[in-house]
């Protein structure tokens, strides 16, 4: 039992550090977050950083060389991630593409398509989004209704997607649609990738609880009005849409992982230098109790990740431990955000004119979305109960029915 890198891993880590040191600045803890920062600027900055990484081979290091990677091992990928996360670098806008669309393209696209689409995706030249959720299909994504009708070598798509993060700046998207409503719900789905500039696609940004629409991490409604997609952009067989979608969702769970933002260290720093009831907050027993709980959660997640890494290091498949990450970290983020805001007492709700929201305020406002996106808390608990613990599935009201006969509500 040790935390040391093997000599090879240490060498690799040093290489990561060296490159990062000469290309980025270390993070500045407690920095205020301005959510209203200009979108174009944000994208431009992110693209520059991605391109830099790509040119040096870091962008998608675990990918094969021919698609822009360096064939790195899973453990090297984690080491890179650990090192990069210490630096103040732009992020997020490529996460869905690289974390979810990339792997699905890698697995299902033709060789020609992979050569065409994967390198620009890795380079950050082309941004991708994920068009799964619909007004009537979120947790139950297989209940989606957008239609695909075959017409010669093409498919004609009609319907609506919703909550599509980044659709407003994306070049391509992965899409699940229903090709046959007479089949059972999971059997009537087919998977495509689509050019977001195709005629008939309309993207309408949705105003989020942050009060912004069309911001960096913002989501959208996406309407499909007789959009034509060539059959060659189908991923998997006709009717295999669910299977392909599940591959993507599995990747999503790995990609989403740890909720980023105000953490226990920030809460500790705050408590160490802020007065409350005439004494430092850190002297308050109620504050100490919370810090202890958050530390146990954060530390538990950290070492859960280390256990996963250890398994990977030995060439073993990691256990199901990682399934707890999002549920624990998103809830912790919300609680820490709340704690930081409350420390301002009567004035805790005020936003600084110049610096914008505090990291606690941003955490509090963003956390509700994290508890929903990529599988809600409730769905994740179902998954732990059913897949990890092996408890029976919920009885289903839709079992065996043709999709068109399934009851639906709001």
């Amino acid at each position, binding site marked *: *039992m040790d935390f040391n890198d093997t000599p090879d891993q240490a060498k690799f880590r040093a290489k990561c550090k060296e490159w990062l040191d000469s290309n980025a600045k270390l993070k500045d803890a407690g920095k205020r977050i301005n959510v209203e920062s200009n979108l174009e600027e944000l994208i431009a900055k992110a693209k520059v950083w991605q391109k830099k990484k790509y040119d040096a081979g870091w962008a998608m290091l675990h990918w094969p060389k021919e698609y822009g990677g360096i064939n790195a091992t899973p453990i090297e990928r984690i080491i890179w991630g650990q090192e990069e996360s210490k630096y103040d670098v732009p992020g997020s806008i490529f996460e869905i593409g690289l974390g979810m669309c990339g792997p699905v393209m890698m697995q299902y696209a033709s060789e020609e398509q992979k050569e065409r689409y994967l390198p620009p995706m890795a380079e950050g030249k082309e941004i991708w989004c994920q068009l799964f959720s619909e007004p009537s299909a979120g947790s139950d994504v297989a209940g989606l209704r957008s239609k695909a009708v075959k017409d010669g070598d093409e498919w004609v798509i009609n319907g609506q997607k919703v909550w599509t993060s980044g659709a407003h700046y994306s070049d391509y998207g992965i899409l699940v649609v229903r090709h046959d409503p007479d089949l059972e719900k999971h059997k009537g789905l087919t998977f495509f990738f689509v050019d977001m500039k195709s005629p008939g696609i309309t993207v309408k940004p949705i105003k989020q609880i942050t009060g912004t629409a069309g911001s960096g991490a913002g989501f959208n409604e996406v309407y499909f009005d007789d959009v034509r997609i060539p059959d060659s952009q189908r991923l998997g067989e006709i009717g295999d849409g669910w299977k392909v979608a599940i591959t993507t969702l599995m990747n999503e769970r790995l990609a989403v992982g740890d909720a980023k933002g105000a953490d226990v260290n920030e809460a500790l720093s705050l408590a160490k230098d802020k007065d409350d009831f005439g004494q430092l907050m850190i002297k308050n027993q109620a504050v100490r109790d919370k810090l202890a709980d958050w530390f146990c959660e954060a530390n538990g997640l950290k070492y859960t990740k280390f256990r996963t890494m250890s398994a990977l290091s030995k060439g073993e498949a990691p256990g199901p431990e990682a399934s707890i990450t999002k549920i624990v970290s998103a809830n912790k983020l919300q609680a820490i955000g709340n704690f930081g805001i409350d420390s301002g007492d009567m004035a805790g709700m005020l936003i600084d004119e110049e610096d914008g929201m505090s990291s606690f305020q941003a955490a509090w406002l963003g956390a509700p979305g994290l508890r929903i996106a990529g599988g809600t808390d409730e769905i994740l608990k179902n998954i732990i109960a059913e897949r990890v613990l092996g408890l029976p599935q919920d009885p289903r009201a839709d079992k065996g029915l043709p999709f068109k006969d399934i009851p639906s509500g709001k």
Partner: protein
Amino acid sequence: MNLDFSDDQKFLQDEARKFFDKEGGLTNTRKVMDESLSHDEALWGKVLELGWTGIRIPEEYGGLGLGHLELCVIAEEIGRALAPIPFSSSVYLFTETIIKYGSEEIKKNVLPKLVTGEIVGTYAVAEDMSAITESTLSCAVEGDSVTGAKIAVPDAELATHAVVLVKGTKGPELRLVDLNSDGVEISLQKNLDKSRSFYKVAFNNAQSSLLGDQGSGWESHVHIMDQAAVLFAFEQVGGSQQALDMAKEYAMERYAFGRQIGSYQAIKHKLADMYVAVTLAKSNCYYGAWALSSESSELPLAAATSRVSATKAFQLCAKENIQTHGGNGFTWEYDCHLFYKRSKVLSLNLGSEASWKEKLVSAMEKTNTLN
């Protein structure tokens, strides 16, 4: 990066699990409870035969000369089996104190007999119904004679010796006392978990030997507590996992309203919460095991983190296991209460959750190492 036990250690754990199962598992715990025994004599005898009390004792004193990690894996299995034996008192607390603070002479006299079981040890701290501090310590030593009383001392009847935390002229001291010597009086105290025994031990000019240095007894005591916290936490994780497994099994078999109760989300989500707590606790324990076995300066932080996390996990799993069992869970016949009671006693043995949270935050203030 290798945050995992070695194949040998995993093998040892597997052997330990099979051993406790073969020897009767929870029926031993029940027997001790129902017959008001102090411990399971036969089981303790077999544990001695296996040499487990000497795991950490160097070979020159007749032990196996293995490390703390071996102790961690056995602790987890003891926790799972709720084994009614004085292992934690004698091994995690007493033996570790002798190894670390005993003079050469004491080590020579005591360690080999701990391996054979001729000596069984315990560790005496509490004096009243509150957390002890350096300044409230009242049991005192003058010259070599100890006077005062300790309560909630585990396994004191079976134990032949005790490490006693006392007030000395230069500050707290750790003292080794032969419990069969003059001036020692032991009386059983009733407690919530009848599968474990606790005693009042009164000293009236009882003879003792100094362990470690005069005046640094408090630091030594804190260090022994930190070490033991990791080992207790492994017991707690073993118990949590077993309580979760029990709840899961029952939820699969029990039907209500025409369905397995495990198909209701109220039960599923309860069990998922238990799984999350156990997973966090286990990962924290691995960190604790690393700090313990590598003698890291992070031990105070790692120990408190393991301890708090495991205490929370075991208490959650034990109470929700009862809940999952419905009316059956509230009966003496079902095993749920064994876990409930052990989870409480284990959570108090080294000091309450609140006191360990206090240690955790103090360590955080000093180190701030999470990144």
